[in-house]
């Protein structure tokens, strides 16, 4: 059964969230699960009420980390009986957007909509679902892991090459 995108999003940032939170404090796996679940729900609420939107200067991952960090600090505050709480949404400041970078992202995003579907599939399975090449080969009915690896490599190189030209034409270089 195909996972919903909400599940995919939830699973995508879970490992890095755990690593990030482990650096902040000594949390058990169960505590991390609770914290991540609570964080993800707050995140969804903020998406629903428009407090968080995707812009060129924002990142879902940083926002989740920010919420998690404040929830953790609030938890510590509660334990030490300090009652003042922090609302992560009020303390989240996105970085100042860099105009050229924003333009590059926009061009890349538009270009990505036009790529060959078979390339899109393999790149999404690798970069979004983070599947191993063996599993990708199985899902895409490719002969073996090496064939999948080669296909992904050729697609990425082709995309980067066309994208480079596009960016240069728009006056954007590295």
């Amino acid at each position, binding site marked *: 059964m195909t996972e919903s995108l*909400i599940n995919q999003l939830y699973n995508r940032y879970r490992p890095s969230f755990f690593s990030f939170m482990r650096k902040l404090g000594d949390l058990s796996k*169960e505590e991390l699960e609770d914290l991540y679940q609570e964080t993800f729900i707050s995140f969804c609420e903020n998406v629903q009420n428009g407090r968080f939107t995707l812009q060129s200067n924002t990142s879902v991952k940083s926002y989740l980390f920010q919420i998690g960090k404040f929830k953790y600090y609030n938890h510590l505050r509660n334990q030490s009986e300090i009652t003042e709480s922090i609302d992560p949404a009020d303390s989240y400041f996105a970085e100042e957007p860099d105009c050229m970078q924003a333009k590059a992202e926009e061009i890349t*995003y538009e270009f990505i909509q036009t790529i060959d579907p078979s390339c899109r599939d393999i790149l999404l399975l690798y970069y979004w679902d983070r599947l191993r090449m063996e599993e990708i080969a199985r899902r895409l009915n490719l002969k073996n892991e090496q064939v999948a690896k080669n296909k992904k490599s050729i697609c990425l190189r082709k995309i980067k090459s066309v994208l480079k030209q596009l960016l240069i034409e728009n006056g954007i270089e590295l």
Partner: protein
Amino acid sequence: MKKNQEELIDQYLNEELSDEQRLLFEEEMERDPALKEQVVATRRVIDALVCEQEKKAFEEIKQTSVDEIRRTIQAERRPRRAKKLFLPLFSGAAAVAVILLLCFRPYEYTTREILSDHLIPESLEVNYTRGDEGRFGDVSDSTATTEMITVIVMNHYRDHRIDSIYSLYKNYAQATLWHKLPEEVQTIVAYAMIRNNDYDAAASLLLLLDTEQVSSQTAWLKLIVLLDRDYRAGARSIAELLVKRDDGYKAAAEQVLRKLNKRVIL
């Protein structure tokens, strides 16, 4: 570009390198502008692909209620069953092996299953005397007082009208006085909410109370609310506290702990 360099870039961007490997790679990037260009270009492509998926996920989030999202991600936390072992060559033996596997695979209770163990008490122990509701006259949402709510809640509880307590809460849900009520009254209101399956409302009252400071029956209701939200660590610490207190909830708390702690064999 070399193949292994491509893999290294992927590992770097997927945060799969150790701290030491990452530093070395970043030093290499500073020395080699062509490598840096490849990293930036790959990152751009990945970011665009991820952004595209996130946009779709956002649409899904906007069209899904928070309760539904909570259920979805709680299901994610449900432990995955052990993978079936390789089937032996002989079908008869294979069938036996599968049956044995199905019978003896490790099993972890979900919080839903723990909650279904009749954890909600039949009644609460509360000392009260009937108050005179008549002296409050007609009141509106804005003039409801903690004293008035306290008397009405206590009277309803005395008369076993749990649903009326919940209706009272619904009528005055907008009033901000609920958290100002004495703990005992908040506990009864939260109990009425739980009995009416309104766990979110109960959570809004109970989760703000300091477990260490409240009575064991209030702590017990808080444990139920935490289990409903699948916050196992929080539920576990309350259960441990109740075992330590040993004042009426010990056996039930131990039962919850057993199911939270142990993998059991079916």
